[in-house]
């Protein structure tokens, strides 16, 4: 061995020994709602994650029940305890916590990291728009710029993307006797296969509702009913955003809309929120509640209530989130597990095309602002691991969803879960709610007014006039309107 190679070997050994000594123990603490997608993330990280830096990085998720999730996260962030390095956040909370200085802007890190840029470019534009940008940039503009542009502010990445669609009883919709009776009454056939739902409109949905609403003692698919049976259901609940999410779909599909935060301070509220299109869409939404279970009359028909009633075999078809589909096809929790299929949410014929616009669900995860450079680097490596193709495929196979187009285009994607094809086809129609800090006040007041209309205290027009007036005043006070 020459003296030169001896020195090289010594140097290599010193570096290796040094790096072994320098490997640090780092814990990335993450606040997350307690449910399947985050439980999977923890388990999969425990099993597979090794930090590329060589440090001993451990993901430690603080699982918080959904009903307390916002309160706990809010209290933690505003108390200044600086407990979490990563947080799962509803997309609508972005503005609130960004303007409070808690969520980290990631532009500099993305600009320096080709891998992160590749992830952003691979994500569906609707998810980049809803989960990452603040001030919000609409999905069509995000798509135009190829998802990544340095002058857009990026904050989050998808932890669990979600959208809603139809769950239906194939034993009823494919029943020959029921189909014949339906055809005789309405002149069209019941949608049996998932593809048949691609052309279903809200008028059809109303017909399904009327047709399948039966009293105890009547027959349904040849069976005598022991209790009342209901045709259709979708979100109509006062808590959280349980009516707004569905009603927004009607606004957009009828050609109306919500206050356009991307164009503040020039985007008006009056005349938009209470436009004729919004009123017409909202009236249609209210009419269709006549075929829902009676809980709709109380304004408490949230996502869990309709899921529960459907699983008990009391409704023919519902519209709910992909996140709630797994228990519905599990025989241990659902009486209709083996007779449930999934199809697109109905749409409205607008300017010659069937519009299926809907409100985006799911959550991004974000980094907090108080971490040192080393923790930020490790947290970003963790983000890259979660959004790597292998991890995403494992997550989808475990019942989750992916926002990466490379995973969505995998030929086997639709076979990994019975609702995957529907989720994939629905994704391009997704739009999001506002992200500004005033969101909570706007949402709470809107939920109250929608609830008044759902419970029959005011008309659709009166409710939307009240919403528009409130939002106009609030946004002017906040200098978001001229």
């Amino acid at each position, binding site marked *: 061995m020459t003296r030169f190679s001896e020195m090289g070997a010594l140097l290599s050994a010193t570096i290796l020994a040094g790096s072994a000594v320098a490997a640090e123990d780092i814990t990335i603490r993450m606040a997350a709602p307690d449910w399947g997608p985050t439980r999977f993330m923890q388990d999969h990280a425990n099993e597979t994650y090794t930090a590329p830096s060589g440090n001993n990085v451990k993901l430690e998720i603080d699982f918080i029940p959904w009903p307390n999730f916002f309160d706990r996260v809010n209290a933690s962030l505003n108390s200044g305890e600086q407990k979490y390095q990563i947080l799962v956040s509803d997309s609508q909370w972005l503005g*609130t916590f960004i303007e409070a200085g808690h969520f980290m802007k990631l532009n500099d890190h993305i600009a320096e990291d080709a891998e992160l840029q590749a992830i952003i470019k691979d994500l569906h534009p609707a998810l980049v728009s809803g989960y990452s940008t603040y001030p919000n940039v609409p999905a069509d503009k995000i798509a135009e710029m190829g998802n990544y542009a340095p002058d857009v502010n990026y904050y989050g990445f998808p932890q669990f993307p979600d959208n809603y669609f139809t769950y239906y009883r194939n034993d009823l919709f494919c029943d020959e006797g029921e189909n014949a009776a339906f055809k005789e009454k309405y002149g069209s056939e019941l949608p049996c296969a998932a593809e048949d739902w691609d052309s279903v409109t809200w008028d059809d949905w109303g017909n399904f509702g009327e047709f399948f609403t039966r009293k105890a003692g009547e027959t349904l698919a040849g069976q005598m009913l022991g209790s009342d049976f209901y045709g259709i259901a979708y979100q109509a609940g006062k808590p959280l955003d349980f009516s707004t999410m569905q009603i927004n779909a009607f606004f957009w599909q009828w050609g109306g809309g919500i206050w356009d935060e991307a164009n503040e301070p020039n985007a008006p509220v009056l005349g938009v929120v209470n436009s004729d299109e919004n009123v017409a869409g909202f009236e249609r939404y209210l009419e269709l509640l006549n075929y829902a279970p009676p809980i709709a*009359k109380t304004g408490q028909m949230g996502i869990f209530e309709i899921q529960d009633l459907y699983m008990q075999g*009391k409704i023919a078809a519902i519209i709910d989130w992909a996140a709630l589909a797994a228990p519905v096809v599990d025989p241990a929790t659902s009486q209709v597990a083996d007779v449930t299929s999934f199809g697109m949410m109905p749409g409205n014929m607008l300017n010659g095309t069937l519009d299926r616009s809907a409100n985006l669900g799911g959550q991004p995860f974000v980094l907090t602002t108080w971490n040192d450079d080393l923790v930020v680097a490790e947290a970003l490596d963790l983000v890259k691991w979660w959004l790597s193709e292998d991890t995403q495929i494992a997550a989808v196979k475990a019942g989750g969803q992916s926002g990466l187009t490379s995973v969505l285009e995998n030929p086997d994607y639709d076979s990994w879960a019975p609702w995957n094809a529907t989720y994939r086809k629905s994704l391009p129609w997704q739009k999001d709610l506002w992200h500004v800090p005033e969101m909570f006040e706007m949402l*709470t007041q809107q939920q109250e007014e929608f609830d008044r209309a759902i419970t029959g205290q005011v008309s659709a027009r009166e409710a939307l006039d009240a919403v528009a007036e409130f939002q106009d005043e609030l946004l002017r006070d906040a200098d978001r309107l001229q």
Partner: protein
Amino acid sequence: MLWPSSRTSCCATRIACSKPMEKAVNQATLPPKLPPAFERKVEVRGFLQWINAPERRGALLVTPALATLFLINILPLLWSFGLSFFNYRANRLTAPKFQGLENYTDLLGDDRVWERFVTTGLIVSSSVALQLLIGFGLALLFAKKFPMRRLALMFVLTPMMLSFVSVAIFFKLFYDPTLGMLSWFISLFTGESFALLATPAGAIAGIVIADAWMWSPFVMLLVLAGLVSVPGYLYEAAEIDRAPSWKRFRTITFPYVKSLLLLALLFRTIETFKTFDLVFLITEGGPGSTTETIAIYAYRLGFQFFRTSEASALAYMILFVVIVLTSIYLYVVKQRNASEGV
């Protein structure tokens, strides 16, 4: 520093000590200069003896409790009271800005606040009246001896031992129009499901029933304490005089339970005025905002809208109302005592 106790150690009493004598004793018994460690030890022991003196021991024992109370109760109260005069949001980076009474005047001029006060008043008056009525009736029932009385009493007392969340979920399911027992029972007669919470009046009734179910046993306990204290000879005398049962109740029973009934009225009014859990879980303030109490609105202001200083001001307005209610109660009790010459 020389602590008083170490001063007394040099002579039995201060009266007996004179300065020259003190000096003489010091010179005779102590070395000219003590080592520093020893001096510190003497000082510490002296301080402990001084602070542990009987006249200071009471104060010493309550100091930790007072300090804790101040830190976790009084200080936040004072802090939030101060905050109510500022413009401050807990979720913004901007510093609080003084604005005097603006939060209070804004709230007093806000229709939403008055609407919630009216709703709260309606729930309080209906629920407390029902609790007093049922509680009094139950107390009259349990004042008499009957078989299995103890077991029945235990069952009747159970609701007030349950958590608000359990009671709220129980009633939410009970009222559910599709799966609930109430709807099932009514449908036996009408053939239609029944959605109690679908109308403002029905939703308020639903909350009042749940609250009264939970807290009537509390009223019963207080009234029962009054009933068992009525001397038996008064009833015997009334029986000899052949006084009718209504007169016996009015002249013997009621005067004994009146003060306890007033106490129950005060406790339940204050508690029901602050109702949050039951309403939030059963109706979330709906339909619309027709069952939204002032406590829920204060929560929304503080933790959903992040109007921290406005929420503080509203909390003090609620406190003011509670103080007024308490003062009215104390005034009534004082008047009654004065009229009875107590």
